């Protein structure tokens, strides 16, 4: 496989204009066939991914770039949308083995899936490079392993200053990034409570950025604690208000990971029929995120929130 350098086309600064829209509108507007889609594990953009699955007949095919992902990428893979995945890790975490991913790679079900492996940090440094407009980033990961041997995009060279080996990873500029975060104002300043993985660099690398949030707040509240802003408005195209928008996974300081739901889902994903029935019930059978939440049960979601708040609310130790 010959390495094809990626054209560097960064988006321009987005205006400080009103950006709130529904998940349906945002996905319709920005995600198209053959889109190069970026996402990461923290937090899970479930409300946006479910909407992509609902629009799969229109979208047809995407190429995914992730660092690590649990569940969201495999919802797209199982729904037959993904042609290729560039990744550090795609598995179930505590939910266990990802049979959806295995079926696609091993048997081409529901369609063949090309995989491009990196280490997690190696994958993350692709967005670190892109976020600063650089063509690549050197890392001290992946050296000596077989990851570069099976992925010719990783170049091991001797660095020109110290003559010691470094592994270069190419910048990744997704067409669209889908991200879930804590809160945002209507012009798209996004704040995160707690750990946020690499959503900051992902947003800075993508041409278009869709962020779903637990809460919409005023710009005055953003200005009150500006160091919580992980993604300033000029990167952002769309803000989607999706309370509980990461369920079955967690949203820091809002609600806890619904492990009982996740484990039950992964049990059903063990077969293609089980997966298809699951998305028919929870995704295709609901018209939007609110209907999904009603199907799961808002009482259940509030209990997950209460449980999180028993241990921590932002700014308070319990």
């Amino acid at each position: 496989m010959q390495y094809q350098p990626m054209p560097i086309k960064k988006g321009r600064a987005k205006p400080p204009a009103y950006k709130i829209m529904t998940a349906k509108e945002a996905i319709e507007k920005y995600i198209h066939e053959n889109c190069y889609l970026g996402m990461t594990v923290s937090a899970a953009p479930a409300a946006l991914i479910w909407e992509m699955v609902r629009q799969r007949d229109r979208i047809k095919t995407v190429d995914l770039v992730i660092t690590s992902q649990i569940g969201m990428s495999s919802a797209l893979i199982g729904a037959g949308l993904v042609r290729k995945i560039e990744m550090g890790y795609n598995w179930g975490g505590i939910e266990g083995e990802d049979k959806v991913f295995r079926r696609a790679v091993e048997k081409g079900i529901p369609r063949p899936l090309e995989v491009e492996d990196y280490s997690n940090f190696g994958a993350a440094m692709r967005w670190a490079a892109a976020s600063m407009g650089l063509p690549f980033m050197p890392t001290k990961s992946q050296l000596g392993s077989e990851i570069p041997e099976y992925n010719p995009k990783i170049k091991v060279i001797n660095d020109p200053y110290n003559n010691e080996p470094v592994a270069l990873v190419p910048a990744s500029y997704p067409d669209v990034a889908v991200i879930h975060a804590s809160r945002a104002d209507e012009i798209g300043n996004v704040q995160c409570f707690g750990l946020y993985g690499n959503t900051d660099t992902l947003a800075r690398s993508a041409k278009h950025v869709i962020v779903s949030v637990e809460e919409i707040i005023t710009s005055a509240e953003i200005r009150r604690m500006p160091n919580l802003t992980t993604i300033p408005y000029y990167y952002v195209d769309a803000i989607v208000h999706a309370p509980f928008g990461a369920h079955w996974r967690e949203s820091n300081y809002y609600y806890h990971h619904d492990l009982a739901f996740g484990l039950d889902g992964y049990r059903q994903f063990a077969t293609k029929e089980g997966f298809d029935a699951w998305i028919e019930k929870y995704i295709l059978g609901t018209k939007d995120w609110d209907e999904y939440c009603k199907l799961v049960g808002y009482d259940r979601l509030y209990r997950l929130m209460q449980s999180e708040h028993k241990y921590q609310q932002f700014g308070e130790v319990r």
Partner: protein
Amino acid sequence: MSNYTRDYSMPELMAVTAAREIKDGELAFIGVGMPLMAATVAKFSHAPNFNMMVEYGAMGPAPLRLPMCVDCAVNNERAYFAGSQREVMGAQQAGFVDVACISGAQIDKYGNLNSTVIGDYHAPKVRLAGSGGANDLASSAGRTIIMLRQDGRNFVNKVDYLTSPGYLSGPGARQKAGLVGNGPAAVITTMGVYRFDAETCEMYLEKIHPGIDLKDIKKAVQWDLAISPHLTETELPTEEQIMIMRTLDPLAVYLGTGRQTLAGDFEAFMAMFENSYHPMVKLMRSKGMI
């Protein structure tokens, strides 16, 4: 010092054995799962000043409940730091991490691990998770502790895919490759504890778990395994170490069949959290941690 106990499961013995590899005051990179239980035992017993980093951007959490994943909300709880992955993994690449716990599906005599594919990469018999952070930890942490199940087929002459570097092809190979960290210090399995010879970098058996037969260990390793002349039995867990693990993880989500118990059972899952608050507060108070 509390007394030794024989009331333990094999995963509990592995977690305690790994905990003993962690020294007080160290900074560790810890994945969720069995390494997390090992880290917790260390923190609550012999290494109160030990702190851990978590892959998606947290350092020094001291939660009163069980973390569920590397990006889990629980990792923010009472943490010293929460933020970006670049902070924690960048610090590791810069050499700030003393020790890390990793795993894999296959291992060879130099401690090289495979967690990517079984069989041919382009037509895999089994596709696995991929590196995740394992390669990064194996590359740059000061030393690594490897934990894996020893099933008779996974101690191989050659791994199908070298995901995470051990000593690569032997003495000097890590330095030649340009790796920051010093490589694996110990391998803890369901059968025993292995270390690496300082000169040859080859794995040898140092300790054997109680009730395991040396003949079975030799059968479970494809190469001609060296045995320490001072082979001893693995130290038993103490009552207190077992109590710590069972307080944090009463349903054995990480060290037993808890996941089967919880699948689809929301009430059991919520009860696990609600019920962990008071015993954990009591445990932390007894250690002067809150």
